[in-house]
């Protein structure tokens, strides 16, 4: 810069500097753009491949069979006239008889026929159980940590442990669930299994630590521990966001600590806790590893409440009918299920890849994505509505 008055003192002297600035800005912009591009590519790819499976061109525009049927083996039969017919097990038998020597080729593709009702129901049940358990445990411990516990080393240690829980690989949770819930958790029974670890007689029955077996309950509890860190952290933040004045006012009006929490803190923290737990739902719905050993099957031709029970005699009492209905209903928790992420894994990696398997796979992925996206949308709408209602 020169002191001579004729020269503009602010004139840029170093062209390189401004070039470097522009280059920096553009490289950051491009990297961000790359991420957006990849995200879009994934979504478009899934939408493109999945939409023909899930949607139809005529009313009702949605492929209801895909959403309302259980998965089954797909038979693709081609005859000598060049016709290709897709059908299920029973249809294949009839068709083969009909065609006789006219049959040219039959391909069977496992799991790729029918629909994905089984996995949808299974995922819904797993999410229901895991979110209920995680909310109960998570909110309770968040209340303890932020309202009751004296701040200090112990609390910090607990927080650290919870944060570490979030970093545990999900397959480890799967193994933990297998050990803890499938093989060890206590059940009430009259006839404990031989491998039971501990049997405590309780007069009316025996408490046997023999595990819950592979079932919705085991999987739900395992998933609950996967999403617990999210729920505890979010709940603590929501509790901390409630003004201290509410607690003081409430207690100045003669509330006990618990009364103050129940009536002047929790109601106003609950919207936030619920919205963040919806994000927990998305996480729970998406995990594969924790449910592989604890709840999910690659294939099951029954819904959880369609349990095989001995047929009742025609003159069976209403009590026997009632008992069977209850047992079927309990199947919601005590049966193993199919789940969407595991189903997708099976379709993509466990059976020979071909166009038919891919079709089922992309259809499932699209449904899965739409479910998760609609959950996130719900959470956003809920949060916006409640924010408007609870402002202070």
């Amino acid at each position, binding site marked *: 810069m020169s002191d001579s008055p004729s020269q503009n003192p602010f004139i840029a002297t170093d062209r390189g500097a401004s070039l470097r600035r522009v280059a920096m800005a553009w490289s950051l912009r491009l990297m961000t753009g790359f991420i957006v591009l990849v995200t879009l590519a994934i979504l478009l790819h899934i939408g493109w491949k999945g939409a023909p499976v899930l949607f139809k061109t005529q009313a009702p525009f949605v492929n209801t069979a895909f959403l309302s049927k259980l998965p089954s083996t797909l038979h693709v039969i081609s005859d000598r006239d060049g016709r290709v017919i897709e059908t299920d097990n029973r249809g294949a038998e009839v068709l083969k008889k009909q065609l006789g020597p006219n049959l040219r080729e039959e391909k069977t593709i496992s799991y790729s026929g029918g629909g994905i009702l089984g996995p949808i129901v299974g995922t819904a049940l797993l999410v229901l159980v895991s979110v209920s358990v995680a909310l109960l445990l998570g909110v309770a411990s968040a209340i303890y940590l932020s309202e009751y516990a004296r701040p200090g080393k112990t609390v910090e240690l607990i927080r650290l442990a919870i944060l570490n829980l979030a970093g545990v690989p999900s397959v480890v949770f799967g193994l933990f669930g297998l050990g803890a819930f499938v093989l060890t958790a206590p059940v009430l029974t009259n006839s404990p299994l031989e491998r039971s670890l501990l049997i405590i007689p309780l007069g009316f029955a025996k408490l046997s630590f023999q595990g819950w077996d592979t079932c919705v309950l085991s999987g739900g509890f395992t998933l609950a521990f996967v999403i617990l860190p999210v729920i505890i952290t979010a709940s603590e933040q929501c509790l901390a966001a409630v003004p201290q004045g509410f607690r003081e006012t409430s207690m100045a009006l*003669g509330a006990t600590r618990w009364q103050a929490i129940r009536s002047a803190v929790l109601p106003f923290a609950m919207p936030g806790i619920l919205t963040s737990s919806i994000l927990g739902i998305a996480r729970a719905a998406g995990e594969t590893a924790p449910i592989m050993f604890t709840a999910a099957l690659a294939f099951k031709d029954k819904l959880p409440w369609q349990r095989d029970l001995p047929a009742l005699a025609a003159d069976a009492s209403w009590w026997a009918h009632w008992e069977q209905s209850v047992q079927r209903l309990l199947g919601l928790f005590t049966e193993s299920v199919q789940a969407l992420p595991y189903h997708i894994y099976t379709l993509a990696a466990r059976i020979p890849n071909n166009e038919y398997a891919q079709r089922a796979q992309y259809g499932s992925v699209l449904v899965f994505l739409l479910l998760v996206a609609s959950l996130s949308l719900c959470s956003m709408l809920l949060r916006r509505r409640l924010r408007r209602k609870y402002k202070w």
Partner: protein
Amino acid sequence: MPDSRSTDPDADFISVRDFSYAYGSTQVLHGINLSIHRRRITALIGPSGCGKSTLLRAINRINDLVEGAAPVSGSIHIDGVNIYDPAVDVIALRRNVGMVFQKYNPFPRSIYENTVYGLRLAGITDRAQLDEAAEQSLRLAALWDEVKDRLDEMATSLSGGQQQRLCIARAVALRPRVLLMDEPCAALDPIATARIEDLIAQLRDRFSFVIVTHNMEQAKRLSDRTAFLYRGKLIEEGDTLDIFGNPAQPLTEQYVTGRLV
């Protein structure tokens, strides 16, 4: 105005004796001696950080909630009962000693629910009784006419001054004997402030008020008695007229004339 220590029980209604208070290892009140009269308005004045809020919050033991806060020595008696006695039920104490905070903070619930909040805590569920108490409390807080047609609306939809009067209604609903106010008008505009002051003046013969205020004009206008605190010590207490007109201590005079740094 009576000014004797022991002859008149009303004059020694709340009796603070050699009261010292600390947050952890930081002592903030040093040997306070103060008599608060029944059905009078007592103002606590002093510069920021002098301990007047701590003293106020010690009277209903709401400061117990603060980690590490506890009295070091001395006592506070209300109507002859030592409130720091282990046998005292803090809940019952707080029902009898209401409090209004600086920042108006009604719960984000309906006006009605805010008013009867303390009664609900006390286990009253009879709707007629609650309705009756709500109306009376809102009338006492001079808010009834403004809200009687919209009791089910959110309390947070009221104006700031109305919200603070709602907080007063919420406190008086329990019929406390003492009302503690921590700078009740600090967050309000002058018109709302005037209404709150009018309200306090109307209620002076029903409750014993202790008001912490930064506003010396307000202390002068409202209070019967004034106590001046400085750096955790009580410098002077007495009739408001004396404190402002004819203070005994030079420090008090400097403060009330605005010359104390």
